């Protein structure tokens, strides 16, 4: 307990000594860091630093070779993605595929977890419970769409909206899953500046309301403005972490980005 910095922390997401290799290449190399509740934590690093691999390990899409992942104090290492989601960790994808044949509103309704209507038997044995939850979810979906100022898209086919709008819908849908910690994989990649600004406002608003974020982003201006602290990843391990200013002025970070040290 001598390390005062560690003693006061109680991270909502803790990654400890995580390892993953692909055919001899260590994509994640003994990575250790924590995400404090209530923060927007940025995860940056040069191309190939292992950011996406780390996301896949945390969210259960890859099984780690070693190390542990804890969400809310529960060990979720090696769990299926849906089980990790049940512990309150939800993630988005870099390039969301559009849901064919669904309206935006329908696509939103995939979000809520543990819906009674997702049990085939319930559809016939307790339709009343399905009615109730579906009505509540629909109302909630429309409320969130309004908050995101995209309620005009509700009945549009999900295949017809722009990539940037889709990113907003994705964020809105993830909120329906009521995450404690939300992992965003490049939320503003390929999004026009106006929508990117909107996304930033929304992420900040949701954060103030209590959602913890961990986000990968290549847009430095975006991430430096939004995130604190920032974790820098290089060649699979954590190079450093700190406030945006600390990270910006760290020589090792500059070197990693310029491809030095090789």
């Amino acid at each position: 307990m001598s390390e005062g910095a560690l003693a006061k922390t109680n991270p909502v997401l803790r990654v400890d000594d995580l390892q993953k290799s692909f055919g001899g290449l260590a994509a994640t190399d003994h990575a250790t860091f924590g995400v404090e509740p209530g923060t927007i934590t940025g995860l940056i690093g040069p191309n190939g630093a292992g950011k996406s691999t780390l996301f896949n390990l945390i969210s259960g899409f890859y099984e780690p070779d070693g190390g542990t992942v804890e969400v809310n104090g529960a060990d979720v290492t090696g769990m299926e993605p849906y089980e990790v989601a049940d512990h309150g960790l939800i993630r988005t994808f870099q390039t969301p595929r559009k849901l064919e044949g669904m309206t935006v509103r329908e696509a939103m309704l995939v979000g809520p977890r543990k819906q009674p209507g997702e049990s085939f038997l319930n559809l016939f044995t307790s339709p009343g419970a399905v009615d109730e939850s579906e009505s509540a979810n629909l109302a909630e979906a429309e409320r969130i769409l309004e908050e995101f100022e995209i309620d005009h898209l509700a009945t549009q086919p999900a295949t017809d909206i722009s990539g940037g709008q889709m990113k907003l819908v994705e964020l809105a849908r993830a909120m329906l899953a009521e995450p404690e910690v939300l992992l965003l994989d490049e939320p503003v990649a390929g999004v026009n500046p106006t929508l990117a600004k909107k996304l930033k406002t929304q992420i900040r608003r949701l954060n103030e309301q209590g959602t913890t974020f961990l986000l990968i982003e290549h847009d430095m201006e975006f991430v430096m403005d939004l995130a604190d602290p920032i974790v820098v990843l290089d060649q699979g391990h954590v190079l450093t972490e700190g406030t945006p200013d600390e990270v910006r002025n760290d020589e090792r970070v500059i070197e990693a980005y310029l491809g030095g040290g090789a």
Partner: protein
Amino acid sequence: MSALSDPKGALSDLTRPEGWVLGVSVAFLLFLLVALLTGALGPSYFLFLVGLAGMYALLSFGLNAQWGFTGLINFSVAAFFGIGAYGSALITASSSPVAERLADVPVLGSLFGLPLVGLAVGLVVAFVLAVLIGIPTLRLRADYLAIASLGLAEVVRLIVLNERWLTNGSAGVRGIPGFFQGWPVLSTFPEAMPGLRLEIVPGSPIFLETSFWQALLNVLLVLAFAGGAYLVLRRAHRSPWGRVLRTIRSDEDLARALGKNTYSFKMQSFVLGSLIMALAGVFYTHLNLYVGPGDLDPITTFYAWVAVILGGSGSNRGALFGGIVIVTIREGTRFLNDVALPINPAPLRLLLIGVVIVAVMRYRPQGILPPQRELIWPNAIDDRGAPNRPDSGVREQKGGGGDE
């Protein structure tokens, strides 16, 4: 709004393809009516065709629940159909080798000969097989199920062909009773009905005899099977359960990230579809009163796929429509025998189906009747007083009023 309370509104609500399908269907029904009245089409044979159409509708419903809902590629439609058919045949038929051997076993022996037991056995075997093939393949990418199911179809067919002690091999199973044998009233209904002679068009009387009433019972049976399956699928399709399946079809990883156990959902979809296919097989057994290894030929799988793609993947009524079209082409071409053609008309059947599918793919790749409106649990929408139709349809500019 229902078509009964507001027929005009219901009509103007139809999209162009819906109107087109309705028009063609009405014309086709009129044509059949004329053929029936003039005696060109025997009433018993007509009802046999309706039964066959119901059977194909069931097969397409089953495949639609797998491919249309979830995107599962199943090439063993014929195998599940055959399991339903053989399952019920081996229990009920007088020539069943299994029944002969087990006839003296107490309790077990007395279960043979009962069509309801045959139905249960067909469904249970199909269930077990679907789970067994699903366990190793549904965790993997979609193509693995496709390959495994291709193999399964052949394995089931070869077992049926070669295991004579079980299936009579290539001789097939004869002596199958009607489905209603042993039921009160219904078992003797065809014999009890009087033979009728109707003469609506002068000079061409129509005879309604025992075979007609028997065929009528079969039609009622298939209506019950297909109607039940349709209602179950329609409700499931519009539910949160169906929504997860449709998400898996577009992006399985997304569904997993949102906390859905996609393996379990895919298994449910696969088993449900396979059970409906087996149900089609059970009905076929009691319609045809004979089953042989030829009934497991891959052509049945091919027909089901054509029906689903033609009707519009993901749409239950599209599957129904596709099934009817397949039977019309399959059986309708028989009448070409009466017309003098320079070539043998039998192979024309497959050619015609090929032309139809190419035309659909070229001009309407989403199928004739794709799902056309938002699939949200109906009561949730009604409760909120929100418009029950999107501003613009998912695929058409107008949403259909009736279904999907």
